[in-house]
Structures are given as structure tokens and as C-alpha cells.
């Protein structure tokens, strides 16, 4: 039992106060008045110079939202949110029009540096010669609610890829936005998605034209910065026929006392033979060692495999946030379409995670795969909640699900709530779930071979999450691995 005791001690030792990214950047910012009303919605829309149809869309969502109630079914507990005590819009005050990265507020650039995520373009501007053929990432940096810099625009333009803040897309490509916005996550979808539809501040818009393979990984780094600012990101990604795009989303936020609300909506659409790979590393402030503060993360993410032979793949590494409420889903509408979900959810301290996926099989010969790894430590609660369903006409639907949980310490909880529904005899669904702690035998074996206790535990945890880490793009895998070790610092090395 020595190992168990040691692990428990370790968990006690680690202090979530040591949040590595808990710093605050002081920049002048421009805010909407506190609270939510039709005026707030109008204010945001006006700030964004939005056309009338967009304002109407927002107002409709807002009116709908007033009639809705907060969902209560998730296994998370938190004090009631006062939706009138939140700033719904905050933008870094524009000093002047930004022509190049040099003109960006140096403080903002410094923030990214501290995060260990220098904009690649900085190097390019400084004349650093990068080896030929090295993979490139385009960063659409979201600093609070406004995209500050969009890089690599030229190269993307050549390929015909549209990658811009959604606020710009609304002005420049209204036909595309009108055609797709709200078609995957309707404005009335759920409480938080409706709220987002009314007040979303910004986010990314990606359109990959037919037959184009996006020449680089697209990436957005989110930061929640201004005190009491809800972040309402809206992301819309469309892969037209035969297109491919890989999108990375990474999040960190500075330490705060008040809880911050984050309700993002992400919509993905793939047409015939198209593929979208969406990866997330989420590391927002999880609250301090008493469970105070931390981000509330209520996200609606959904992908629609609208065309035949299309594919959507979600990969997520969730280590932060006080509360995570997130179910990236795939609607497998097109024949032969495929949905994938790979997830690592780590909870420590007083974090509460209720996450999972939905695979909705509607088309013929659709396949899906779910690999979920939950690690609970400290006093956290970690829940996997998922749905796999095959419609009556979804002949030959196939699903494989494996959700495994690892418990570290006896104060935490791990829960699995899968729903598996089949309405078709040709369905083949397989589901397996396990919950366990790290085997004493395995630890003993590793220690026998000369590893320290901590290294041994690290090795086991790494093995435990390997299936998912492999799915991440190279650039992200490194960061994710770092995050996992930070999140479990002390508890598993």
C-alpha cells in the first residue's frame, strides 16, 4: 500500500494555486456595460459593424434564451450564475489599424511568449530561416474577444482558404455565413448555445473550397483576460467537397477569483469526401486549492458529416476549468461517413468534468469510434457521458467505444454514463468501460527495473492516455504532454 499512500500524499501536496498560466496582462480595454438586455445585443452587433440580418438573428436568439432554463442534468454543482453580473463584450482598445505583427501591443505579444506560444510569424519577421518543408501553423489569436492577429493570410489566400475572424466573415462573406451559421447548432439548441448565439463576440471562420487540402494547420489560441468577461466564441468551419483541414484550438487563462463563464459554440460542416480534424487543448484556470474561482466552461461543439464519405474527428485534452460541460458530437448524415472522438479529461483539486460525445448514425454504412480517458485526482468529479445511436435507416452502422477511468486518491469520483441505442438489426455496436487505479503489480515491476515511484506512475499514465495523444497533431502533442504532467504535478509525476 506504500505507493497508494505516497500518491495520496502527493495529491495533497500539489496545490492547484500553482497554476502556471495564472497571470494577468493589463491592457486598456473597451467594454459593454454589465448585464444582458436587447441593448447589449445591439451594442455588440453595432461594435462589430454587423449587417441588419445578423442583428436580427442575434435578437431572435436572445428572445428565445429568455424563455429557456439552465440545464440541470449534468453531474456538476456550482452556485447560480447571475447573468446580469457579467460583461458580455470586451475588446482591447484599438490604438490604430494593425498592419503587421510589430504593431501589436507588445504586452499582448509578451503574454503569448509567457504561454510558450510565440507567434511563428515573429520568427519570420526577424529573419529566422526555417528549414524547408517544416510544417507551418497559422494562428488566429483571440485575445479576449477580438482576433488580434491573423497570420499566414497570404499563403492561405493562394490556396483559396478563408480563415478569418467570424466578425469579418459576416461582413465579407455573408452568403457563406448565412448558408451555414446555426445549421449544425440551431439557435434554440440549448441554453448556453442560445446565449452564445445572442452575444457571441468573435471566433474563427474557416472555409476550405472544394478539393483543397489546407496547406497548414490552422490554430487559435484563446485567452480570457479582462475581469468578469464572459467569453462567447463562435467558430464555424466548412470543408467543401473533397477538402481537408486540421484545426487546433488551445486555451489558457489567467488566475481569477470570480468564476468566469465561457459558453462557446463550434460548428463543423463537411460535404462529400471532406474531412475536418479538430483538436483542442484546454487549460483554463481550474480554481484554487479550495475550489474557489475557476472557469465555467459550457461548450456546445457539433460536427455535421453532411456529405457522403465525409469525416469529422474531435480530439481533446481537457485539463483546466472549474467546470467542464462539453460534448463534441458528430451527426453522421452522409452515407459512409465517419466520426471520431478522442479525449483525455484530467481533473484535480475541486474540478468537475462532465464530458463525452454523441455519435448519431443516420446515413448508411456510417462508422464511429470513441476513445475516452478520464483521470480523476484530488477531490474532483470526472464523468463521461455519451450517446451512440443508430437510426432505423442507418444500415450497417458501426461503433466502437472504449472509455477508461483512472482514479488517484480516494476523495475523487469517476463516473460513466453511456447511452447506447440501436433501432436497426444490421447495427454493430461495441462498448467497453473500465475504472481502476494504477495496478500495484505494474508499479512494482517498474520500480524493480530502477524507475522511481514518480517516474513509474508517469509512465503508466502516459501509457494510459497514449491512444489519444497519438491523435493530436505533432505541435500540439508536445504541449499536451506538458500539460498533463503539470495538471497532475505531484500526484503522478
Amino acid at each position, binding site marked *: 500500500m506504500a505507493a497508494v499512500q505516497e500518491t495520496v500524499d502527493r495529491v495533497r501536496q500539489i496545490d492547484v494555486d500553482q497554476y502556471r498560466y495564472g497571470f494577468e496582462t493589463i491592457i486598456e480595454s473597451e467594454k459593454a456595460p454589465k448585464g444582458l438586455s436587447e441593448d447589449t445585443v445591439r451594442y455588440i452587433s453595432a461594435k462589430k459593424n454587423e449587417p441588419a440580418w445578423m442583428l436580427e438573428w442575434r435578437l431572435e436568439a436572445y428572445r428565445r434564451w429568455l424563455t429557456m432554463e439552465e440545464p440541470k442534468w449534468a453531474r456538476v454543482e456550482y452556485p447560480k450564475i447571475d447573468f446580469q453580473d457579467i460583461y458580455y463584450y470586451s475588446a482591447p482598445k484599438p490604438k490604430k489599424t494593425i498592419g503587421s505583427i510589430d504593431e501589436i501591443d507588445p504586452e499582448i505579444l509578451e503574454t503569448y511568449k509567457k504561454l510558450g506560444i510565440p507567434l511563428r510569424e515573429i520568427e519570420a519577421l526577424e529573419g529566422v530561416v526555417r528549414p524547408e518543408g517544416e510544417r507551418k501553423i497559422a494562428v488566429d489569436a483571440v485575445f479576449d474577444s477580438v482576433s488580434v492577429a491573423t497570420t499566414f493570410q497570404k499563403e492561405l489566400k493562394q490556396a483559396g482558404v478563408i480563415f478569418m475572424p467570424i466578425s469579418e466573415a459576416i461582413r465579407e462573406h455573408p452568403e457563406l455565413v448565412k448558408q451555414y451559421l446555426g445549421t449544425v447548432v440551431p439557435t434554440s439548441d440549448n441554453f448556453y448555445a442560445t446565449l452564445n448565439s445572442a452575444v457571441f463576440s468573435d471566433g474563427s471562420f474557416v472555409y476550405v473550397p472544394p478539393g483543397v487540402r489546407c496547406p497548414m494547420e490552422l490554430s487559435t489560441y484563446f485567452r480570457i483576460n479582462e475581469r468578469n468577461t464572459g467569453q462567447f466564441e463562435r467558430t464555424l468551419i466548412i470543408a467543401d467537397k473533397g477538402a481537408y483541414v486540421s484545426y487546433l484550438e488551445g486555451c489558457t487563462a489567467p488566475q481569477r477569483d470570480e468564476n468566469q463563464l465561457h459558453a462557446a459554440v463550434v460548428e463543423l460542416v463537411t460535404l462529400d469526401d471532406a474531412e475536418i480534424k479538430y483538436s483542442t487543448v484546454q487549460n483554463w484556470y481550474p480554481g484554487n486549492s479550495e475550489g474557489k474561482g475557476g472557469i465555467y466552461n459550457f461548450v456546445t461543439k457539433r460536427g455535421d458529416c453532411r456529405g457522403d464519405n465525409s469525416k469529422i474527428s474531435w480530439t481533446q485534452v481537457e485539463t483546466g476549468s472549474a467546470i467542464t460541460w462539453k460534448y463534441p458530437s458528430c451527426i453522421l448524415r452522409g452515407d459512409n461517413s465517419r466520426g471520431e472522438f478522442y479525449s483525455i479529461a484530467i481533473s484535480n483539486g475541486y474540478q468537475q468534468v462532465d464530458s463525452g460525445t454523441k455519435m448519431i448514425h443516420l446515413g448508411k454504412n456510417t462508422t464511429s469510434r470513441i476513445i475516452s480517458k478520464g483521470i480523476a485526482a484530488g477531490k474532483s468529479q470526472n464523468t463521461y457521458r455519451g450517446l451512440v445511436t443508430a437510426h432505423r435507416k442507418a444500415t450497417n452502422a458501426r461503433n466502437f467505444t472504449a472509455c477508461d*477511468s483512472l482514479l488517484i486518491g480516494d476523495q*475523487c469520483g*469517476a463516473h460513466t454514463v453511456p*447511452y447506447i*441505442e440501436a433501432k436497426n438489426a444490421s447495427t454493430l455496436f*461495441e462498448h467497453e468501460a473500465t475504472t*481502476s487505479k494504477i495496478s500495484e503489480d505494474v508499479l512494482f515491476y517498474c520500480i524493480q527495473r530502477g524507475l522511481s515511484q514518480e517516474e513509474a506512475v508517469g509512465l503508466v499514465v502516459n501509457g494510459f492516455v497514449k491512444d489519444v495523444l497519438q491523435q493530436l497533431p505533432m505541435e500540439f502533442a508536445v504541449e499536451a504532454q506538458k500539460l498533463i504532467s503539470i495538471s497532475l504535478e505531484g500526484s503522478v509525476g
Partner: protein
Amino acid sequence: MNVALAKTTTGAVLDGTFAAARGRLPGVGTVAETRQQAFDDFARTGLPTRRIEEWKYTDLRNLLRDVAPLAPTPDQAALAQAAKLVEGLGTGDTQKLVIVDGVFAAGLSDLTSGGGVTVHALSAMLDDATSATRADLLRSRVADPMIALNAAFATDGMLIDIADDAAPSRPLHIVHVATRPSVAAFTRSLVRIGNRARVTLVESFVAAEAAKAYQAHDVAVIWIGDDSDLQHVRVMEDAGDAANIATAIVTVGARTKFNTFSLTTGGGVSRYQSFITLAGEDSELLTNSVHLLRDKQHGDCTFVIDHAAPNCLSREVFRSVLDDRAHSVFQGRINVHQVAQKTDGKMMSRSLLLSDEAEIDNKPELEIFADDVQCGHGATIGALDDSLLFYLRARGLPEKAAQALLIQAFVGEALESIASDDLRDVAISAAERWLESRA
């Protein structure tokens, strides 16, 4: 809203039913008060709908519409029909305790006490004004609208006491017989098993030819002491258009073995929900459930297993075979309390869909608050393997026979779990009857 409207209509109608039935329900004073409380509890929600998470897949307001009026006390003709059915059960030498249309039939039952076994009719105990605890007979630790409804209306049932060290030579056998159409029977049985006892308990549900569209509402509350062994077999062969809503609430002591098997082939709408608490250390729980459903049958098997003590083992096996437009539901939950270290829990659900219109909904949940545990669950859904069918057909078997052979093998694992040869044969022949009627 529609929902609210539906609830008030059902509620109002039931109010009348309850008022009308009260005169007939055994027990006055505290018992009557408990019934009223239970009825109020039920009336707050009414028949469960899919909006209640535990009843998500079995929306009784939609499936049952209403609670049927209370069945009348069986007459001679009904008792004669029941006698015939009991004879034909073929369960071998068991101590039969027969309940006809919700009323204990002493004439058809074997009330031999002795060997540590004491048997009473519940109605007599509820009427016993000298007992201070008689109202407890209607109380239970689980809050659920259908358990509350049962407490409000329960007309009869068995109260079985098994003393420490008792090992009755014959299995105890509670037989529920339905003889009338469009009525509801509410039964409640309590079984108290002492320490170091060895018991086999059988429950059968059967129906006479004339019994159509009736409702059977049953609750069984079982306590098992320490170092004991209970083998439980339940075979439900109600009429194809009847409803059977049953609950088992079981508390298991230390170092005890509880092996429960249930087979559902009957009932148009059925639900068997078990709440099993492993309250003592080192106990072992095996549950095996089989659904063989066809036509428009709806069957629900719900298990909530509470590991409340360290070092217990639980194994749940569920098998369902669905034909035509049948709908099967499996909800299994393993709760591991923080004290229940060294828990070993496994749950396996497998379903076979024989028709494109059949539906299976699975919800295997794990809820774990202890770290030193091994828990897992698996679920598979699929059709019969074409290559296996081809192999058998190539050996000259007709298609239906080949299918039957594969189905038999599929449910075999669950059937094998029945320890007693006689009872296993009963379950196997019930399964065979189902397969034969397919052909």
C-alpha cells in the same frame, strides 16, 4: 402544456380509483395513513414519463396510459383456473404460495411451516392491529413513483421468515396468476432471511386464457443476513398484452451469496427494476437477466447495485433477443461508495437484433467514489452472424432451426447460472417455448 394536462387527468381518475378501492385494502390506522402518504407521493409525479431520467426509455404514461381498476377478489371459477395453471408449471417439488389476481389463495398454497420457515399472508399482517410495525410492511428505502403506487394499493402478498441456520429442502415458490382482463393487481412480498441460511426462492408470473390487457404491479423486499445463500429465479410469462411492473429491493449482509436470475418472455409492457445493496463485506452478487421479446413487446430491465461495503464482488449479465418490433431496455448502474474499497464489479450487456424494426437501448452506468476498485462494463449490439448461419445451413439445418440454435447458445451463458437443475430446466423450456413459437 400537454404534459401537465395529461398528468392531471390521470391523477384525477386515479384519485377516484384510490377512493373506491380504499374500503377493500387491508389495514386501518397507521397502515391507511401510510397508504395515503404513498398515494400522495405517487400523485406528485403520476405515471413516470421519459422526462424522469430513470424512466427515460420506459415512458409509462405513454405505454400504460392509465392505472387499471383494482381486480375483484377471485371467485371459485378463477381459483379453479389458477389451480390448473399452477399444476402445469412443471417446476418440480416446490412449496407453492399462490396469489390470484392480487389475493393470496390459501386453498392452492402449501402453508407448511417448519424447518425454520414461517409463511404469512401480507393482508393478515396488515390487518393485525396488535403489531406496532405493520405499517413498515408498506415502506421501502427506495423512492420511486411505481413503488409508491404499489404501497398505496397493495392488496396482498407473502411475508416469509427464514430463521438462522435454516436450509429448507424445497424451494419457496411464489406464483402470481392473472385470470381477469383489464384489471390491476398490486402485490407486495417480504422475505427475511437470517444468518447462515440456504434458500431457493422462485417467482412465476402466469396468466389464464381469458386474462388480457391486465396489469401486475409487484414489489419484493428481501433481506439476507450474514453467511447466507439465496438462489433466486424469476420467470415472467404474462400475457403478451399485459403489463408487469415489478421491483425487487434487496439488502445483502456479509459473506453472503445472492444469485438472481430473471427471464422475461411475456408482457406487452414490462419493467423489472432491482435495487440491490451489498451492505456487508465479502459478499458476492450474480445477476443474470434474459429478454426474449417479439411483436410490439416492450421490456425493461433496470439494475441499481450499491456497493456499500468493502471487498464485494458483483457480476451482471444481460442478454436480449429481439424480434419484430420489440423494444428492450437495459439500465445497469454500479454505485461504489467511498468505503467500498476492493470492489470488483462487472456488467455485460449483449443484444441480438433479429429484425430491422426492433430497438435496444442500453445505459450501463458506473458511479465510483472509491479508488481501489476494479469496475467495468461492456455492451454489444448486433445481428446473428451470417457466416455461422451459413455454416449451419450448409450442414442441412433449416434457417429457423439454425437461428434457434444460435439464439440458444447466445442466451445459454445466462441460463447456465441457475444452480438448481430443475429450475434451470424450467427456464430452458420457457426459452424453448419462445423459440418454437417463432418457427
